[in-house]
């Protein structure tokens, strides 16, 4: 851990002079102050870890653009924001790519996907074979009795994303049950 009298700027100056320990301390301090910044903007802890690693690599790549003479944090935050924007852009474009057409959902909304002879308990084995997220959503909606909106609030997704995930799970289960 960096000693208290070592500011981030002086750590970077020492790092530029070739002090590897100072550089490691600087990177640790950087990850320490960037973690809450990312946690406030991203729900998933694993995504925060991945992004933090990506930011540290970017800081390492861009270290030549920092001279140790101006404040360090604005420089580090500028890189962190840049990578965060990239991450969010990729995340949302990925979601759009995998999104189900609204018309496809609407066609199935009238289908009695929940009004069936089957109970949650009778197919719980099949439910456990779904992805963890889908299984969690079905458990909350059909076992614990939460609405889609309540599930969305609890697991940090949008209501429509919960409905889409549930819809996909129903389709998988329907195929399994028909077999």
């Amino acid at each position, binding site marked *: 851990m960096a000693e208290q009298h070592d500011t981030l700027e002086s750590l970077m100056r020492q790092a530029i002079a070739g002090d*590897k320990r100072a550089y490691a301390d600087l990177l640790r301090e950087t990850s320490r102050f960037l973690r809450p910044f990312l946690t406030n903007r991203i729900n998933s802890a694993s995504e925060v*870890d991945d992004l933090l690693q990506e930011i*540290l690599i970017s800081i390492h790549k861009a*270290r*030549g*653009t920092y*001279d140790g003479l101006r404040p360090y944090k604005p*420089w580090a935050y*500028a890189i962190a924001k840049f990578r965060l924007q990239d991450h969010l852009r990729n995340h949302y474009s990925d979601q759009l790519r995998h999104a189900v057409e609204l018309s496809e959902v609407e066609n199935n909304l009238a289908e009695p996907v929940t009004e069936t002879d089957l109970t949650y308990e009778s197919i719980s084995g099949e439910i456990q074979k779904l992805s963890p997220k889908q299984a969690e959503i079905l458990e909350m909606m059909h076992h614990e009795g939460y609405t889609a909106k309540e599930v969305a609030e609890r697991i940090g997704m949008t209501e429509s994303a919960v409905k889409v995930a549930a819809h996909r799970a129903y389709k998988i289960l329907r195929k399994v049950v028909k077999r």
Partner: protein
Amino acid sequence: MANIEDLVIRLAHDDTPSRPAPHPVLLGLRWLAAATIYLAVSLWLSGVRPDLMAKLHSPMFDAEIAALALIFIATALSAAVLAFPDLHQMRRTALAPALPVALFIAVLFFAWRADFPPAPLPVHSFECTLSISLFSLLPAAWTFYSMRKYASTHTRWAGSVALLSAFSVGALWLRLHEQTDSIVHVVEWHYLPMLAIGLIGWWLGKAVLKW
């Protein structure tokens, strides 16, 4: 957390050399010097307009060239600042081209008002845009190549300003080389394409300055 610690140790022991970037003002001055030499050599090779000495006594022409030169200087410095992730904490310098551009528009407006009776339009048209674009290719490539060595986090903005800087060198060259007095032609075929170039730079910056 263990992954982060492993990464920190790995990065701290990475011996890949990293060249320290020069101060952005120094970087901008280098680009300005290179572009000025390119402009001077090109004018020496292509020749200046025959009436240049007489035109330099025209306040409107002087103001136009001065405003264009200011855009060239301000965009080069702005591009240098935009090559740094935090703009080297010189945000005002990054915004510096705004004032010369406003001044340039005002100068063109007054030049257009003063152009009475209007000077005859030259017979050529798009050839001017093409010449400026071709002339600007080298400084544009040089600026983008230099900027890629750093770490811009404002890639679109940086690309736009870098291309404007290169295009302003081309516009200066053609204005000092070609004997054209029609302000309408100059605005239409020399300066309005600069807006399009700015948009191309907006797109190009995102693609080229990615890191």
